[in-house]
């Protein structure tokens, strides 16, 4: 019965996770559990300076005094923080000079993900800083970037190479005691990416990093720091897939972006971590703190995210609009299926004058999932003539899922304008009928409508990503159809 809507919805919403595999690479791991010793172990392993160890220990002590937040619209069994390995690194044999020297198994992993390094290097001109389980294995195109003075390397490398920059900016956007998960990350972060664009430089290529969570029981604690110096421009892409594991894995990352005067930073994410199986078992717990600050006048930060994975997503990419005439943007598509839960949104804190922010959030829920938008728009007293526009729409596929909206709006001056609108609906029978009538099967029609619904956000993605994102939407929702 091709046209029975119930069947189709089932098919459409029962796609299997295609990236569930496990790469067998020799690992070097820290003992399970979290203590000051674990932190000292990580710090020593990475040969870190004293101040960074202090930073970690401080964060750890603050973390001990904090409690896990419960305000989000999420339900999960308590996390045992002592049952997690906080450091896992592929054993390094030697420094790698070219792509050929990369572990063939790793190359195979990337090939399965459909982002072979060679392909990327040859065809798309994307420099990929591939992160597998916390340690950067290979950085491509760094030579090209070096010529322009752009620093794009792993976080630990940056600590060795440009410690003064790291010290100057680390923790300035997300303080180590910002929240429970940020404190945890600040204490145990293993690696991540570092990016510095010098004054007046327009980064010629899209920078990209790929995260993977690989070894079982390894929490991944990424730390990304992006600094756009005066008048610079960079577009940064982050993508994630993780192999199928049965136990829940914890991920608590921090991304900090600093945009100085006239700088523009565009950050795009496609997140497709293992969402758990159809019964809601397993899957990644994703607790991420992402925040950017438009420090100088006329700067701009733009977040674009496509969230299809993770059993639990807790993520609020935010922008602090500190300079005058600064711009913050947030574009999001969040898809939840089966028993996935997402509580995601943004914060736009307007501090400077004539600041502008735009929020476009599209939620799609299917199966038994729950999808929440949670956002804050704050116009402070000083933020005169500021403007915000928010739109958050939810689409419900099936009658067992939930879609929720929690927008907070706080305005403290009279010259700012804030607009918020939201709708919740299902795919209308009219639209389906129209498609059917023109010979489009119901399943293709749903795909078409969902893609059209998310178009506004997808078009914000860099070209290379947009293709992948559309595929992910298809996989997440359209099952066999995709």
């Amino acid at each position, binding site marked *: 019965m091709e046209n029975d809507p119930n069947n189709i919805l089932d098919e459409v919403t029962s796609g299997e996770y295609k990236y569930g595999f496990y790469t067998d690479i020799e690992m070097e791991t820290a003992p399970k559990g979290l203590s000051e010793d674990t932190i000292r172990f990580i710090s020593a392993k990475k040969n870190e300076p004293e101040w960074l160890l202090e930073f970690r220990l401080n964060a750890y002590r603050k973390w001990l005094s904090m409690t896990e937040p419960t305000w989000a619209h999420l339900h999960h069994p308590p996390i045992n923080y002592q049952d997690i390995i906080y450091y896992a690194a592929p054993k390094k044999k030697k420094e790698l000079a070219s792509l050929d020297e990369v572990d063939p198994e790793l190359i195979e992993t990337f090939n399965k993900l459909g982002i072979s390094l060679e392909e990327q290097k040859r065809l798309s001109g994307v420099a990929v800083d591939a992160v597998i389980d916390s340690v950067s294995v290979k950085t491509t195109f760094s030579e090209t970037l070096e010529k322009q003075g752009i620093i794009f390397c792993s976080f630990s490398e940056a600590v060795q190479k440009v410690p003064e920059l790291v010290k100057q900016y680390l923790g300035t956007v997300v303080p180590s005691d910002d929240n429970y998960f940020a404190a945890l990350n600040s204490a145990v972060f293993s690696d991540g990416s570092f990016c510095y664009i010098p004054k007046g430089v327009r980064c010629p290529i899209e920078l990209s990093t790929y995260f993977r969570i690989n070894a079982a029981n390894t929490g991944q604690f990424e730390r990304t720091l992006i600094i756009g110096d005066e008048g610079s421009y960079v577009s940064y892409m982050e993508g994630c897939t993780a192999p199928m594991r049965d136990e829940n894995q914890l991920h608590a990352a921090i991304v900090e972006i600093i945009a100085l005067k006239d700088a523009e930073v565009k950050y795009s994410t496609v997140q497709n971590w293992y969402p758990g199986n159809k019964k809601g078992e397993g899957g990644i717990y994703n607790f991420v703190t992402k925040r950017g600050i438009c420090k100088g006048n006329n700067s701009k930060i733009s977040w674009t995210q496509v969230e299809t994975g993770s059993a639990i997503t807790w993520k609020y990419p935010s922008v602090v609009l500190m300079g005058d005439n600064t711009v913050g943007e947030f574009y999001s598509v969040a898809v939840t299926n089966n028993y996935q839960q997402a509580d995601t949104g943004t914060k736009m804190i307007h501090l400077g004058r004539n600041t502008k922010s735009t929020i476009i959030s599209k939620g799609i829920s299917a199966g038994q999932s729950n999808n929440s938008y949670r956002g804050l728009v704050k116009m402070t007293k000083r933020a005169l003539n500021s403007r915000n526009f928010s739109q958050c729409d939810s689409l419900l596929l099936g009658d067992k899922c939930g879609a929720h*909206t929690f927008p907070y709006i706080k305005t403290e001056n009279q010259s700012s304008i804030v607009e918020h609108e939201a709708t919740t609906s299902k795919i209308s029978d009219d639209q389906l009928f129209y498609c059917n009538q023109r010979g489009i099967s119901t399943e293709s029609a749903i795909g078409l409508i969902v893609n059209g619904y998310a178009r506004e956000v997808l078009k914000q993605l860099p070209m290379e990503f947009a293709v992948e994102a559309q595929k992910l939407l298809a996989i997440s929702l359209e099952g066999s159809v995709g």
Partner: protein
Amino acid sequence: MEGITTNYNTKETLIRLFGENRPEELPAMARLREQAMEAFVQNGFPHTKLEKWRNTDLSRSLNHAFIFPLEPASDGTEPEDIFRCDVPGFNTHMVSLLNGRVIDQGNTLPQAAEGVIVCSMAEAFEKYKDLIERHYAKYAGFGDNAMIALNTAFARDGVFIFIPDNVEVSRIVQTVNLIHSTEPVFVQPRNLVIMGRNSSLRLVMCDDSVDNNVGFINSVSEFVLAENARLDHYKLQNKNDHSALINNSAFHLEAGANLSTSAISLNGGLIRNETRVLLNGRSSHADVLGAYLMDRHQHIDNQVFIDHAVSDCTSNELFKGILDDSASGVFNGHILVRKDAQRTNAYQNNKNILISDKAVIDTKPFLEIYADDVKCSHGATVGQLDAEAMFYLRSRGISASNARMLLMYAFVAEIVNRISIPELRERIDDLVKKRLRGELSVCDQCVLHCNSREQKIAFDIDMSKI
């Protein structure tokens, strides 16, 4: 447990008072009071660490040496001596409350013969035990609401209304809740309105201050609408700057019932309206409207919870407000669409205008949806008066202040125009105009309530210019 600490330890006083003043009543009632008191003792007064109270701070309002009048006042004050309802031509059946106790004026509603009851709660506790047992405290749950718990523990009096099946009450019922005391006073009126099948009622509830003294009102009202009942409900709030008014209203709607409730807040030191609507029968409908005009250091908080428990119900929420000076406003709308509440239509809108840089608004229009065949939307805007409209009026020779007033008036008119009682609409319209000219608060300080206005209030604008 964190809580509010005041210099006068109001919570301890209340606990002591509760133990000392046990009215003689049915054991079931006594048990209910005890449970409610337990809930209050456990939670204490709500504080800003609670999500629902983060923007409304009671600590200043509670920081007074309150007296708690539990027995009827015996000084023989006649409500006519201190207050006269100043809605011209407004012929209502009026029930006055002074410091939370109903003042018996000996008048009965013409429709009493048909079984309509309008009396004090104290009387209802005695006379209509079966109705009380069936309905009292069944709709305003106190498990998660410390203010309702406190009210339930102490409730002595209020207004009781019962309308039998198929009776349409022709006369408007008006309750006037007055506070008159030389000392800071803490009162807790409790109202219950029971409406039978196919009945209808128009009810106006006014909260007024007659002097400039401190008052804290913690009021709870329960409304139950049986099949196809229709209730038009208005709250008119005009209090002095030293008063705090916590107003909990719980509406329970059965199939086909139709509710329209509006809260018009013109003045008041701190006002919090918590409205809960349970749409419990198919095809029931609720309109929840509100308008607020606040200035100086006034604070207004509207909390609306609409629970779509069954399918085919509709709800419509619209709140509009203007905040001036250092006034602060809160709007928290929550629509819950339960799993099987298919074919729900729910709209929620909150629009605000700030006309001062010190005014603050917090708005949180919030949707929680578990059914798929629904149409829900919400919107919230914060802005200022439309510059183009201003320019238009100015270009026609209207002064800036008049143009501002006209635009503000037009902004609120959307709510006022939906009042279905013509006399009341006219009166509120006047009050809004007066309020916008800054006159109302002046009058509010005056005890005379001269009530000499015969002609309608108009703006000083030559309309021919427009």
